[in-house]
């Protein structure tokens, strides 16, 4: 992999190191979960008005594709593969690439309970894909943040047990702040990250919800909020469960509300849930520890990045101060000997400025690599969600089980009492019949809950397995990328300083 650009495969040769990150470096690409967001995101030049991706055109006509792979404008990197960052090669050639751009302010047209009657921001969502589930290759739609919330809610409903990437936060701020440029830009970046992560998830990328979100123009035809208990699966279509009769429906609502109150933490059993699966409990605890350490490492990574940045800045300022001093000594020189010696200072100053540039470049790369840690915070949240789905499904099941058994107990009592009355007890018999219907409905619900639970457990399992695999690869890539960069830039700096040391060697006074 790494030696592909060179004839020799040896990693330890110094020349390779210096040049390594000059080439297209596959290490900085991720091949699995998630876009590793650069600090400077790519600028996509897709003006909203003259949009060649409009789906009114036949998909395969001779339209110039938009510059998705435009160079990152801010970059002063030696290796420029930033444009590939959202390229997620899954298996062979499947890909889906999503970008978010062109925020636009729009007015609320319809008045409803939900609208503030003011204005809101929409974003242009551009998709390019070759997945067969998307009948087409290029799509563009405009969506507002509320639509994203809806999408997230529907996915959470439909894909219980899956590790669904968490959506960007709603911010509870005033509408003025909402439309301020930095906020809008931050949100745009966050949305893009989110959608790309969805696109990276092997199951969710083909979900109906996502397909509708990315393809259907105009108002998003996904229901807001949830009033129907969903049963998602591989295909993702929302299948309604056979409606249980009165009592059953109430129970469902109760359980749904319970689920929503399952708070997002790993702490012990939820009230009522009796989790006996030891393996699950162990795994949950491990995930909790892992999350804690990822948080810690992510924080230290931030501190490291800041320290590297500061080092670069100060080195640059030092260089500039010496350049000024050199210039001053040259201009104001009272003696010629000064001018001759001032060259030494100038060499040092130039070296310091070069070193400063190297630190800045090193840091941009470091940010890219260590961002993996930050991304995994989102992943851990998704895992929490998946585990919470399981706990709430178990809770539902357990409550239904106990409901069934208490109903049966009541039925027994009624039958016993009714049997004592000779010739039957009309009112009691009626009650018993009604009770038996309720029991049947509850039994059905229980069976659904069992299937739900089992399915969610299986989703959990496969997701955790997938995550472990991807995490191993991602962390490995991160380490490699980080280390290669440190080596490369350290070598560059060593060269620069060695040269200055040689140039000033006449000042060597000691044996060291």
């Amino acid at each position, binding site marked *: *992999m*790494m030696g592909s650009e060179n004839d020799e495969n040896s*990693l330890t040769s110094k020349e390779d*190191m210096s040049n390594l990150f000059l080439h297209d470096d596959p290490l900085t690409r991720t091949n699995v979960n998630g876009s590793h967001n650069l600090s400077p995101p790519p600028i996509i030049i897709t003006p909203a008005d003259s949009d060649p991706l409009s789906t009114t055109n036949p998909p395969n006509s001779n339209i110039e594709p938009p510059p998705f792979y435009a160079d990152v404008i801010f970059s002063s990197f030696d290796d420029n593969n930033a444009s590939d960052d959202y390229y997620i090669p899954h298996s062979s050639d499947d890909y889906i690439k999503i970008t978010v751009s062109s925020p636009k302010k729009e007015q609320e047209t319809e008045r409803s309970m939900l609208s503030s009657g003011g204005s809101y921001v929409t974003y242009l969502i551009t998709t390019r894909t070759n997945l067969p589930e998307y009948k087409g290759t290029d799509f563009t739609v405009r969506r507002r943040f509320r639509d994203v919330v809806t999408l997230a809610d529907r996915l959470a409903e439909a894909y219980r047990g899956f590790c669904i990437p968490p959506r960007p936060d709603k911010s509870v701020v005033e509408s003025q702040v909402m439309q301020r440029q930095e906020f809008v830009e931050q949100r745009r970046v966050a949305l893009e990250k989110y959608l790309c992560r969805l696109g990276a998830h092997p199951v969710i990328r083909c979900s109906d919800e996502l397909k509708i979100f990315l393809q259907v123009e105009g108002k998003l035809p996904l229901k807001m909020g949830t009033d129907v208990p969903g049963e998602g699966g591989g295909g993702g279509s929302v299948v309604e469960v056979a409606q249980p009769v009165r009592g059953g429906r109430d129970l469902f609502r109760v359980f749904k509300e319970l689920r929503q109150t399952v708070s997002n933490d790993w702490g012990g059993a939820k009230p009522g849930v009796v989790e006996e699966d030891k393996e699950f409990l162990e795994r949950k605890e491990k995930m909790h*520890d*892992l999350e804690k*350490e*990822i948080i*810690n*490492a992510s*924080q*230290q*990574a931030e*501190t*490291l990045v*800041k*320290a*590297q940045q*500061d*080092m670069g800045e*100060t*080195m640059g*300022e*030092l260089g500039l*101060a*010496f350049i*000024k*001093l050199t210039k*001053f000594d040259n201009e*104001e020189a*009272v*003696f010629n*000997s*000064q001018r001759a*010696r001032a060259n*030494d*200072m100038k*060499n*040092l100053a130039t*070296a310091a400025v070069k070193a400063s540039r190297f630190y800045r470049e090193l840091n941009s790369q470091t940010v890219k690599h260590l961002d993996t840690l930050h991304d995994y915070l989102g992943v851990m949240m998704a895992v929490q969600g998946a585990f919470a789905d399981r706990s709430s499904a178990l809770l539902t099941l357990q409550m239904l089980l106990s409901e069934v058994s208490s109903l049966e107990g009541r039925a027994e009592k009624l039958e016993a009492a009714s049997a004592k009355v000779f010739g039957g007890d009309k009112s009691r018999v009626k009650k018993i019949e009604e009770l038996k219907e309720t029991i049947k409905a509850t039994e059905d619900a229980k069976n659904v809950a069992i299937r739900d639970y089992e399915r969610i457990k299986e989703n959990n399992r496969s997701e955790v397995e997938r995550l472990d695999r991807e995490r*191993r690869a991602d962390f*490995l890539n991160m*380490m*490699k990328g980080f*280390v*290669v960069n*440190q*080596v490369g830039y*350290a*070598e560059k700096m*060593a060269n620069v*300083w*060695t040269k*200055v*040391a040689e140039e*000033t060697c*006449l*000042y*060597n006074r000691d044996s*060291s």
Partner: protein
Amino acid sequence: MEISTEQARNVMQSPRSPSSQPYLSASVTDPVKLGNGVQAYISYRVITKTNLPEYQGPEKIVIRRYSDFVWLRDRLFEKFKGVFVPPLPEKSAVEKFRFSAEFIEMRRAALDIFVNRIASHPELQHSEDLRTFLQADEETMERFRFQETGIFNKKPADFMQMFRDVQSKVSDAVLGKEKPVEETTPEYEKLKHYIFELENHLAEAQKHAYRLVKRHRELGQSLLDFGKAVKLLGACEGEPTGKLFSDLGTKSELVSIKLQKEAQQVLMNFEEPLKDYVRYVQSIKATITERATAFKQHCELAETTKLKEINLDKLMLTRSDKVGEAEIEYREIKAESEEATIRFERIVKRMNEEIVRFQEQRMEEMGVAFHQFAKGQARLANGIADAWRALLPKLEAASSA
């Protein structure tokens, strides 16, 4: 009591030169903390090696403390006006830092440089006060130190001088006299301007050098913390990730140590010399002030002498009986005036020589500092590259697995 510059012998520094050549060298070593609590202080050993007859023998060791060095400097400043007396490291320091090993070492090194600069200066090296400093026993030294603060009570004297200066400036202005009390030759103006600007530039360079030391330490600390965090993360992961994280953490800690070491080197070999030169330039500014004072005195006394002469002539013409007195006064003033002129001219001569010496010395010492800095940075960078590089084979093996 001074030996004039014409008579100054070229005294050499190295004791290893042929014994017929005169040499004088001194070193400041072995700092030791003495005393307790608030009165605690550091004492240093000052070792002198010489073959000069004025000294008590080929080698002498005395114990000195910081205020002894201050005494020496003050004496030299008073007696060798026009000479750029080498600067001392600062007196006060943050209380808790005052006795840290690093600070003590930095101070010792600075005092060593101070004494050596004096011993190698063509004029200063013949100073009697230097001999006292290098040879007197501790009690004698202490006596000298306490005595002289009375007579040469510099600080109040400074104030008095400033006060007199202000007074005379005010009275001049009030009386409408437009005495040119400042030298305004173009070369001297250029020199003054150069010195003042040089201080600004050096101070800025020193500021950034100091910050750079801090940055080294901060980067080192952050790598240490990062290393620890990554190790903990590795403990949560299975193989091979777990072991790799652990190795990564270990390397990170190693690199951190290198950075801390280099930080200290940059401080001692790069930032301190810069700071030293800022102080040196400040010392030159003090000399400039002395020259201005001497110039003023020379002008004023010359003026006064002329007035007295005119007055004397007047009295002689009128055959006044005050002639005798006036003549005595006139002769006295004339002698003073001539002395003031000699003093001023000596300052000018010295300064001209000193500025040449200073610039050469600066270029040389700065060159050394730059070389050290570049070498240090190269060493650091190479060390960092080597440390990280060692991880690559394992990382590569793990990814192709």
